[in-house]
């Protein structure tokens, strides 16, 4: 049976892994390669590296660490951050990344999704979506440039519409980051993920809010997501991946051993 995936997310800023709370106040967690290697050894099913400064700074930063990561780990990994063109994506994939994830540049130019699909195939193309629940309007809104608080914008897209659009353009996977929950460890946004799952016919990855092992179980069983992404609970050692996987197997969730 296809296993549900546990995906540690490593936010990269200036060549180091960092973690902030609700996208602010970044603190250094450690160096990229040893962290990647230790997560792979501990049973992570996949890794995501987000270069959180790249899009908002309008530059492509030094990505030589991608090929250093590809050399040391034997699980798939995805790279996000500042990929604005087919050429940018090609360089990252050539360095050994398995997938590239595009967020703000896809909002600026949706045609980019089509181009990436046509050149590299659907399986490489991950679309990251930062979605914010606006209590006043009761709508899920897509945000852009979330890497830099000062530049973060609310787009004209409602989340479900953007999810439909990116699939029509050839996205192979969607990572839905529920911003209200990010970094606060109160659980994934089950209501939102459940509602988006109905619009999503490609793999859907939950992001934002993991605080304890039950949260992972809930998001798999209630929102039917394909993978669950988390950062701080892993980086801070609050949850060890082998224990999490044993717990989920005990709950009847299909998990790789």
């Amino acid at each position, binding site marked *: *049976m*296809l*296993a*549900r*995936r546990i995906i540690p997310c490593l936010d990269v800023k200036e060549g180091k892994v960092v973690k902030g709370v609700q996208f602010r106040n970044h603190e250094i967690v450690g160096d990229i390669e040893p962290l990647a290697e230790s997560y*792979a050894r501990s049973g992570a*099913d996949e890794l995501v590296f987000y270069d959180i400064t790249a899009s908002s700074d309008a530059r492509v930063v030094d990505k030589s660490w991608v*090929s250093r990561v*590809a*050399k040391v780990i*034997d*699980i*798939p990994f995805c790279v996000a951050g500042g990929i604005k063109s087919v050429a940018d994506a*090609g360089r990252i*994939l*050539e*360095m*050994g990344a*398995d997938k590239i994830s595009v967020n703000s540049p896809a909002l600026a130019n949706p045609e980019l999704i089509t181009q990436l699909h046509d*050149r*590299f*195939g*659907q*399986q*490489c193309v991950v679309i990251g979506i930062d979605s914010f629940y606006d209590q006043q309007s009761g709508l899920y809104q897509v945000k852009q440039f979330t890497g830099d608080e000062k530049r973060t914008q609310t787009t004209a897209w409602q989340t479900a519409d953007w999810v439909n659009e990116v699939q029509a353009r050839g996205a*192979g*996977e969607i990572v839905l980051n529920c911003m209200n929950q990010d970094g606060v460890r109160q659980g994934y946004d089950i209501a939102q993920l459940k509602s988006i799952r109905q619009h*999503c*016919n*490609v*793999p859907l990855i939950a992001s934002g809010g993991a605080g304890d092992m039950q949260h992972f179980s809930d998001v798999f069983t209630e929102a039917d997501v*394909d*993978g669950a992404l988390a950062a701080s609970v892993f980086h801070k050692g609050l949850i060890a991946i082998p224990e999490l996987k044993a717990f989920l197997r005990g709950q009847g969730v299909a998990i*790789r*051993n």
Partner: protein
Amino acid sequence: MKLVIIDTGCANISSVRFAIERLGYAVEVSDSPERIRAADKVFLPGVGAAAAAMEQIRDKGLAELLPQLSQPVLGICLGMQLMTRFSEEGQAQCLAMIDTDVRRMQVGELRLPHMGWNQIQAEQNSKLFRGIEDGSYFYFVHSYAVTVGNHTLSSCEYGGRFSASIGQNNFYGVQFHPERSGPVGARLLDNFIQLCD
């Protein structure tokens, strides 16, 4: 032992090379017919779309050479699909190294691509899987597949059974990515290098 990865211009060449190097072997990436012919073992990697990849292989003048190779060849993911006669993806005529075809997966309500870790089951006793237990998880990413048939070495279940790996004579193919499948993937690559003939 001379190992050559065929430079198809596809995206997962680096990760295949790194995986072989992690096993302690030297490996060359090449699209030269002489270098490929002189290799002891040949790897045919690939991701992306079948028709585009076949075009690149033809442009490089490798479409006639590859079916004539007499040493073991391992196709990986799209590389495996290119070893068949025909792929429904883009209606591509392929290399006809293994007598089977590639079809769009029919998975009902399930999601495509079939992406993630799934379990394999042996259908034949193959050296490729020596020491790898039934039920082992490998990493898959694909929407097209070979149905189970005479050439199936191992199978996988996703909305129906399909070939996780195929083989015929000196030609082997795996639908999953051994280079990204942890220790069992490394074992499979080592089996190919050490045991297959």
